[in-house]
């Protein structure tokens, strides 16, 4: 029983990453009709925003402390981050410790800009071209982005720790009267993704802007005929979708040390999630994300692996294949959209 609950929580954490990436991906497809193979790269850029901020924060100057000596007998060299000298050791140290959550503030503008630049600079020219061309050009873009990141940050994974308060584990079994220990940061990640998903849905549901975008997703032409510049709004939606991917990445950095090919690793999975949920369906992406995350976690339990060996590696793909063959529009896809 313990194991099942533990895997359930594992699944929630995995599922929230899948759901966030897939949400952005399906948002782009639903608004602009573009199949974005560079979406994994956006996730990766988000994670590297966290790396960048923690590096910037820890830029320090060196002073010599004559009262202490190092092992060679010379005066000890003390590194003090500029932050600590500017804001005092308390605030500065806190900022240094909380660089990953603080990176959210950096990620949002960066990703909005990256998304805007991508849409205006490249994807705009591919609306009229076949999906295959869109896949190909965004695939090329993903390679370029990944190589640029590799140039600046190297090929090795970079450890980016969570704030020290969130480092340990917590007994999540207490509510059930059991002892199940689970990393705190993963719980934080799940809550964070729930907030982001809620915010995106609220934005689309309760604002005029969101209403127009939903109308545009349903029937772009009519919205255009009503005198609304839908293209401008869709460009912004691309930026928002990129930010969602970036947010998914920035908070994921403590869980998986960012490396330059993490985007490609997540891309296939997030595509599978989008297809299972239904291309262009936002609730579908979230539902499928959590569903597949849970399925994958449950399948990686030893009891199940003993019955069907290797099932944990392939369950997601099996589900996707079954869904595509029996219900091509996905779990919650609209009838008639991409059903062929």
């Amino acid at each position: 029983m313990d194991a099942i609950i533990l895997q359930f929580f594992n699944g929630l954490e995995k599922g929230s990453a899948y759901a966030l990436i897939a949400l952005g991906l399906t948002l782009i497809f639903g608004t602009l009709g573009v199949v974005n193979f560079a979406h994994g790269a956006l996730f990766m850029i988000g994670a590297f925003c966290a790396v960048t901020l923690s590096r910037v924060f820890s830029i320090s100057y060196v002073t010599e402390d004559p009262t202490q000596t190092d092992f060679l007998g010379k005066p000890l060299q003390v590194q003090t981050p500029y932050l600590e000298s500017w804001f005092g050791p308390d605030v500065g140290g806190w900022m240094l410790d909380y660089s990953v959550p603080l990176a959210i503030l950096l990620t949002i503008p960066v990703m909005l800009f990256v998304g805007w630049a991508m849409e205006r600079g490249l994807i705009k020219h591919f609306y009229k071209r076949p999906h295959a061309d869109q896949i190909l050009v965004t695939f090329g873009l993903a390679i370029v982005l990944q190589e640029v990141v590799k140039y600046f940050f190297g090929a090795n994974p970079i450890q980016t720790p969570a704030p020290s308060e969130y480092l340990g584990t917590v007994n999540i079994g207490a509510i059930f009267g059991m002892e199940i220990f689970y990393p705190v940061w993963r719980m934080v990640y799940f809550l964070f993704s729930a907030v982001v998903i809620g915010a995106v849905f609220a934005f689309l549901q309760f604002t005029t802007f969101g209403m127009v975008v939903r109308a545009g997703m349903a029937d772009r032409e009519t919205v255009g005929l009503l005198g609304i510049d839908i293209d401008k709004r869709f460009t912004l939606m691309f930026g928002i979708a990129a930010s969602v991917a970036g947010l998914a990445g920035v908070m994921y950095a403590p869980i998986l040390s960012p490396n330059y090919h993490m985007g490609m690793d997540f891309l296939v999975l997030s595509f599978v999630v989008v297809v299972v949920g239904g291309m262009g369906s936002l609730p579908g992406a979230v539902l499928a994300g959590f569903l597949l995350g849970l399925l994958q976690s449950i399948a990686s339990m030893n009891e199940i692996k003993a019955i069907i060996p290797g099932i944990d590696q392939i369950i997601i793909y099996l589900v996707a294949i079954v869904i595509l063959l029996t219900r091509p529009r996905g779990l919650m896809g609209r009838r008639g959209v991409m059903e062929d």
Partner: protein
Amino acid sequence: MFGLNPKDTRFLLIVIALTLLTPILLNPFPTESGLAQFNAGYPALMQRFAIYGLMAIGFNILFGLTGYLSFGHAAFLGVGSYAAVWMFKLLSMNVIPAIIASTLVAGVFALAIGYVSLRRSGIYFSILTLAFAEMCYRMAYSVLTPITNGETGLQLTLNDPRILDGGEAITSLPVPGLFGLQMTSYSTLNIAGWSFTFSVGYYFCAVVAILGFYLSLRIFRSPFGMTLRAIKSNQQRLNYTGMNSRPYTLAAFVISGMYAGLAGGLLAAMDPLAGAERMQWTASGEVVLMTIVGGVGTLMGPVLGAGFIKYCENIFSKINEGVLHGWFGFLPDGLEDLVVWIFARFVGEGWHLTLGVMFMLIVTFLPGGLVEGGRRIAARYRNRGKSDAAKQPAE
């Protein structure tokens, strides 16, 4: 000749001549000269040209003719490699049974995957093939370790049975061969500073690749090929005329999967080692890149693309900052550093950046790839001097 019209026969003969003369043509610079690093006439690279060219030819039969974009062809390459290495281990070090087995096994896989995947088209087809390929890759790493040897990769060992070779005790690992002719053996010809290497391995790959090219030429010119093209241009209309298109697409899929399997078998024949990383989806992406860069749907394009990418990969990644400083030494110091810095980002380690940029430019501006680029230049030369009215309208 060969069941082709004169124009195609001439084309085929040119291709054969070029392929057979590759060891000479790709070594245009004397060994001692500074440009020798651009020589590509060494066996390991030429084998890759032939093998990946063959794979791209096969991929083109599917993608170029029917328009179905598969992102899972690396799975067939990997399966082919495993099949070939198993033949080496169990049966004989002769490459013939190995490549036959790899083609057939890949064909069976392609039949199964294609039968399921081809029920959908467009992006769903791409994602289905991607999912199947990832499944194969993950299984090769985990459950199928007894067959694939997991992360280590499948290798020959000293105590493999090798039934046909008569299980005598050996002290060193055997080398794949063709009836006693070892794949790694070569002869070198030295003429006045030039050095040409003719290796058995390359010529074996080249002959197989020529046969593959000939088959694809026949397919392109056949009624079957015309049907495939009809599927690409308008499948719905074809269905309305009472034609069931699925057997044709499935046949194309299986053929192209067998090409990939054959290429995998050849890879194993050149170096009897098979690893799961050959099946990763980015490897499938590489074949797509080759085909697009060369020119989708053209006969020669995929081969050119494969050669171009493999050439750049090998030559670009050898260039480092020292070499660049040598080239741009004539510039003023500050400028030299800047130029070298910029170029250094695109060569050596950064070669993938070049590939990505090049690929994006080609998809955006030159959807027909290198072949279309060549045609456009040729057309410009031909039209020079003619009046605008004489020009044919586009399309």
